[in-house]
């Protein structure tokens, strides 16, 4: 496992797999590099295609530091961590695959460091930052005080976080508040593929995002926000796009 120190001193953990033209993999909220990319077969699928990979535990998640101050979380800070990992691994330019909150971070990375990102695959997001849509405080209330959430997709996510061992509730609340405070406006110019489950309520308008970005769009039939990420169809579409 590699480690870098973020711009504000937060320690970021990451894992690498050997192979040609490594792909940077960025997981979503309340997940981890291994849960999203290793257990789901992505690392193996990339290796089978000859591609190396670098998977990062986002701050607050997995083996990275988990600050509890909302100011420690923003799309720009997450993107800065990713750029530092690329520096450490001496990767001047990579393809990036991000899922959910990781896709938002990947978008921002592509805009802040356009020369570092060749192609972009964004999974499980629509046109808006989802915590802001749901209301960060409602979400935190559900997480910390068990307050009911009206939106079933949000309630599902809270249940998943509660069951999760990859994020602490203090870091989760800080991450939600920090991310929701920054509306998503990054419009990367790189060739982009948008992928979402056909039953993903969190990314219901993913096709509209693809239109905004001039991106290709692939919908995975029947898949939800939770289970679209591991779909073979997603991997095949991404590998083809990044070939």
């Amino acid at each position, binding site marked *: 496992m590699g480690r870098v120190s973020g711009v504000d001193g937060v320690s970021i953990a990451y894992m690498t797999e050997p192979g040609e033209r490594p792909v940077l993999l960025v997981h979503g909220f309340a997940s981890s590099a291994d849960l999203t990319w290793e257990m*789901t077969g992505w690392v193996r699928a990339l290796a089978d295609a000859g591609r190396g990979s670098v998977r990062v535990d986002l701050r607050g998640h997995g083996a990275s530091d988990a600050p509890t101050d909302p100011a420690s979380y923003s799309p720009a800070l997450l993107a800065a961590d990713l750029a530092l990992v690329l520096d450490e691994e001496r990767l001047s330019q990579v393809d990036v695959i991000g899922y959910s909150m990781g896709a938002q971070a990947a978008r921002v990375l592509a805009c802040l460091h356009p020369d570092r990102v060749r192609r972009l695959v964004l999974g499980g997001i629509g046109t808006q930052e989802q915590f802001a849509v749901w209301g960060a405080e409602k979400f935190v209330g559900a997480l910390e005080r068990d307050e009911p959430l009206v939106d079933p997709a949000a309630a599902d996510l809270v249940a*998943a976080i509660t069951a999760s061992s990859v994020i602490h509730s203090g870091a989760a609340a800080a991450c939600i508040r920090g991310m929701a405070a920054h509306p998503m406006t990054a419009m990367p110019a790189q060739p982009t593929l948008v992928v979402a489950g056909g039953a993903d309520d969190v990314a219901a308008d993913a096709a509209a995002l693809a239109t905004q970005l001039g991106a290709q769009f692939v919908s995975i039939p029947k898949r939800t926000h939770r*289970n679209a990420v591991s779909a073979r169809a997603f991997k095949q579409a991404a590998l083809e796009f990044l070939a």
Partner: protein
Amino acid sequence: MAEVTFNLPDLGEGLLEAKVLEWFVAVGDFIERGAPMIEVETTKSTVELPSPQSGTIAKRHVSEDASLEVGDPLVTFDVPDDQAGIVGTVPEESKPKRRVMLRPPDDD
């Protein structure tokens, strides 16, 4: 040929149940050990399980969208006799059962 059955492995963190999202192999397909075999979903995450064995798929014990518990039969392989039992655990007696061909009763 011998039949080797594998059960749903422990997926960690006390997870006891999984739902089948997608099989990547059909009955009759040959699969190499380590190649992606099935995708399952637990309450925490989704997992792609590699094949524990090289062999031909003889039976898929659970269909897509159905659930199974850790320890439930997942898949049965047909493997050459000299390879059976080398990889993984064989839940049945190591001595292959004698196969008996049953004749359907004569209608007339």
